[in-house]
């Protein structure tokens, strides 16, 4: 007890010594346990930067980016090159093209379709064969465009 405080009466009745105890070797083992705990808290894998610097992780990420890029470019090109039957009809009817231009359009359309994948081509061909048939008919039968316009 500090000398500046009066000794409490109850203290005279309290025996000396600490009534609390700890398991044997507790403090020696506590320090070791703490060292292990800290080591567990700092696993290297948790560092996100270090994770992505691993070769496998880097290759995986790069592959995903490349695949996503290819898919995006492919999708955009597909939309760009596609000539729908509505677009052809509109162009034929509204732009006042002559037969020569019409043939060029058909050739262009066929050329683009050939460039696409086989699977896409098969799909497209089934759709466009009908278009081709229409265009062929227009050319072969020498159909007057004005007749078509008047019919519509």
């Amino acid at each position, binding site marked *: *007890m*500090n000398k500046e*405080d009066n000794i*409490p*009466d*109850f203290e005279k*009745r*309290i*025996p000396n010594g*600490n*009534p*609390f*105890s*700890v*398991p044997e070797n*507790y*403090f020696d083992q*506590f*320090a070791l*346990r*703490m*060292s292990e*705990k*800290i*080591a567990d*808290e700092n696993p290297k894998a948790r560092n996100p930067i270090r994770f992505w610097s691993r070769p496998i992780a880097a290759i995986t990420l790069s592959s995903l980016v490349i695949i996503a890029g290819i898919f995006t470019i492919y999708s955009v090109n597909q939309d760009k090159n596609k000539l729908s039957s509505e677009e052809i009809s509109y162009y034929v009817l509204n732009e006042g093209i002559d037969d020569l231009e019409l043939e060029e359009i058909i050739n262009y359309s066929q050329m683009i379709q050939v460039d696409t994948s086989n699977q896409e081509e098969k799909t497209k061909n089934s759709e466009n064969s009908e278009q081709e048939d229409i265009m062929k008919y227009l050319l072969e039968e020498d159909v007057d465009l004005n007749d078509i316009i008047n019919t519509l």
Partner: protein
Amino acid sequence: MEELTDQEILEMFGDEQRRNYAFNLLVRQFQQRLYWHIRKMVLNHDDADDLLQNVFIKAYHGLDKFRGESKILTWMYRIATNESLTFLNSKKKRFFIPMVDVEHQLSQNLETDSYFNGDKIQMKLQQAILTLPEKQRLVFNLKYFEEMKYEEMSEILGTSVGALKASYHHAVKKIEDYFKQI
């Protein structure tokens, strides 16, 4: 074991190669004082062990930002005090029971605790201390058992020296009254 100064601990801790070694020395240097401080509040060894681990983990993560405005031990005492009070409050909230009943529960557990070897009088002293409000209990434990100076206590608890002296005086009076009843 040779004790390191705060400066030496911080310097070693700042070096990544020697950080774990510095932390090990820190644990060995302060573990007992902090353990007994916590144990006197929560009474149970297993609870004290859990809380002591929390204190050192927080110290490990916080030592980088330690500004040296107090001693490292004072800073860690503060962490230990907060951990103990938070633990006792969480017991109260978890079971929706008032603090008085928490203290009663602690007192009952002490009677069957294999790591309490005190006689009847020492048991009575612990029960008397449990009747004190938490902060007063802290002041009494730090003063009576650890013989801590009021100035250091003031840094830990954030209370003025005068208020601490008054708190200790009242704590002693209450305990004396408790002993008069038995």
